[in-house]
C-alpha cells in the first residue's frame, strides 16, 4: 500500500510484510493489553475507580452486541465485541499522538489508516458471521437465507455480502486516513511556511486533532455496531 507515503517491506516465508503496519498493529495491541491489564487489577465486589472504568467499557460493548444479537449468542460475542472495540479505539487514536516517519518511510501510525488492516478486520467479522450462521442454522438453513425472499435474490444477497465487506473496511479506513492525511498536511504547511504560518497552523492542527479523536471514537463504535448487525442477520432465519 503506498497511500500516505512510501513504506518499508520485507519478505518472509514467501509473504510480503509491511514493516509500518506490523509495528503499528503490535503497538496498538500492546497498548490495549496494557490498558486492560492495568484496569483489571484488584477486582472486588465493590468496584474501585479502575474497575468501574473497565466495567463501564464492558457494559458499553455488551450493550452494543446485545442491541442487535439476542439470546445465548450475545454472551459468547461479548468478548469479541469488547476486544474489537478496544483495539479499534486505540488503533484509531494511535496515529494522532504517535506518528513516526524516518526518511520518508512511515513506521508508526494508526494501523486502521491502512486498508489492509481494516479490510482484514472486516473480513474476519464477516467470516465470523458466516461461521456463526452455519453453526446456528446448519448448512441448509444458512445457505437458504441467500435465496430469500425468493430465489433470484441470490444475486442481490451475494452482492450485499461483498459490499458489506467493502464498506465495513473502507469506511473505517477512509475516515482515519483522511484525518491523518489532513493532520500531516497541516503539519507540513506549518513547517514550510515559517514562524507566522506555524502560529496560524497551531489552532488548526489542535482543532483537527480534536475532531479526529471524535471521528476515531465514532468509527470504532460504528464498526462494532455494524459487525454485530451483520452477525445477527446471519444467525437468524429470514422471513
Amino acid at each position: 500500500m503506498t497511500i500516505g507515503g512510501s513504506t518499508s517491506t520485507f519478505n518472509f516465508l514467501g509473504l510480503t510484510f509491511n514493516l509500518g503496519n506490523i509495528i503499528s498493529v503490535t503497538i496498538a495491541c500492546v497498548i490495549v493489553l496494557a490498558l486492560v491489564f492495568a484496569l483489571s487489577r484488584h477486582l472486588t465486589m465493590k468496584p474501585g475507580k479502575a474497575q468501574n472504568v473497565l466495567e463501564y467499557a464492558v457494559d458499553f460493548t455488551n450493550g452494543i452486541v446485545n442491541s442487535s444479537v439476542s439470546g445465548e449468542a450475545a454472551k459468547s460475542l461479548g468478548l469479541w465485541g469488547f476486544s474489537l472495540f478496544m483495539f479499534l479505539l486505540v488503533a484509531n487514536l494511535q496515529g494522532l499522538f504517535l506518528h513516526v516517519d524516518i526518511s520518508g518511510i512511515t513506521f508508526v501510525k494508526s494501523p486502521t489508516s491502512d486498508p489492509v488492516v481494516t479490510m482484514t478486520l472486516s473480513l474476519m467479522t464477516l467470516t465470523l458471521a458466516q461461521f456463526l450462521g452455519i453453526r446456528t442454522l446448519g448448512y441448509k438453513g444458512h445457505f437458504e437465507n441467500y435465496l430469500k425472499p425468493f430465489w433470484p435474490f441470490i444475486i442481490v444477497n451475494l452482492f450485499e455480502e461483498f459490499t458489506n465487506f467493502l464498506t465495513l473496511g473502507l469506511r473505517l479506513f477512509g475516515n482515519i486516513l483522511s484525518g491523518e492525511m489532513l493532520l500531516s498536511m497541516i503539519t507540513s504547511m506549518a513547517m514550510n511556511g515559517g514562524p507566522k504560518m506555524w502560529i496560524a497552523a497551531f489552532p488548526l492542527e489542535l482543532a483537527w486533532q480534536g475532531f479526529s479523536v471524535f471521528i476515531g471514537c465514532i468509527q470504532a463504535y460504528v464498526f462494532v455496531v455494524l459487525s454485530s448487525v451483520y452477525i445477527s442477520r446471519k444467525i437468524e432465519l429470514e422471513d
Partner: protein
Amino acid sequence: MFSYSVVGAQLYVGDMIFVMIAFIVLMWLIKLVAWKPITKMMQNRSDKIANDIDSAKDSRTKAAELAQQRQVELDKTREDASGIINTAKQNGQQQRDQIVEDARNEASNLKSSAEKDIEQQRQEALANSRKDVASLSIEIASKIISKQLNEDDQKGLVDSYIEGLGKQK
C-alpha cells in the same frame, strides 16, 4: 484505492495474516487477563444483589410473621394475666371472708368462755362469801355469847381460842 492496491501493487498478504493472528492473540490475552475475572465478578455481583433482594423479602415476611405471632402471644398473655388477677381476686375475697368468719367465730368463742369464767368466778365468790358469812356470823355469835360468860369461862374460852389460833397457824 483498494482496487489500486489489488491491481497496481502487491497485496500485503503477510500483513493480513499478521493482523488476524495479532487480533486473535489479543482477544485471547484479554480473555485471560480481564474478561474472565471481570465477567465473573459482574455475575457474582448480580447474583449477590438478587440474593440480597430475595433474602430481604424473606426476612421481611419473617419479620411480619414474627410480629403477628408476638401480637397473638401478647393477647394471650394479657388474657392469662387478667385471668390470674381475677382468680387472685376471688381467692382474696374468699380468704377475707374466711378470715372474717374465723375471727367472728373465735370472738364469739372467747366471749362465751369468758362469760362462763365470769359465771364460775361469780359462783365461787358467792360460795366463798357464803362460807365467810357463816364463819363470821359464828364468830360474832360466839363473841356475843362470850360476853355473857364469866371470867373463868371467858378465860377458858380465850385460851381455847388462842389455842385454836395456834393450831391454825
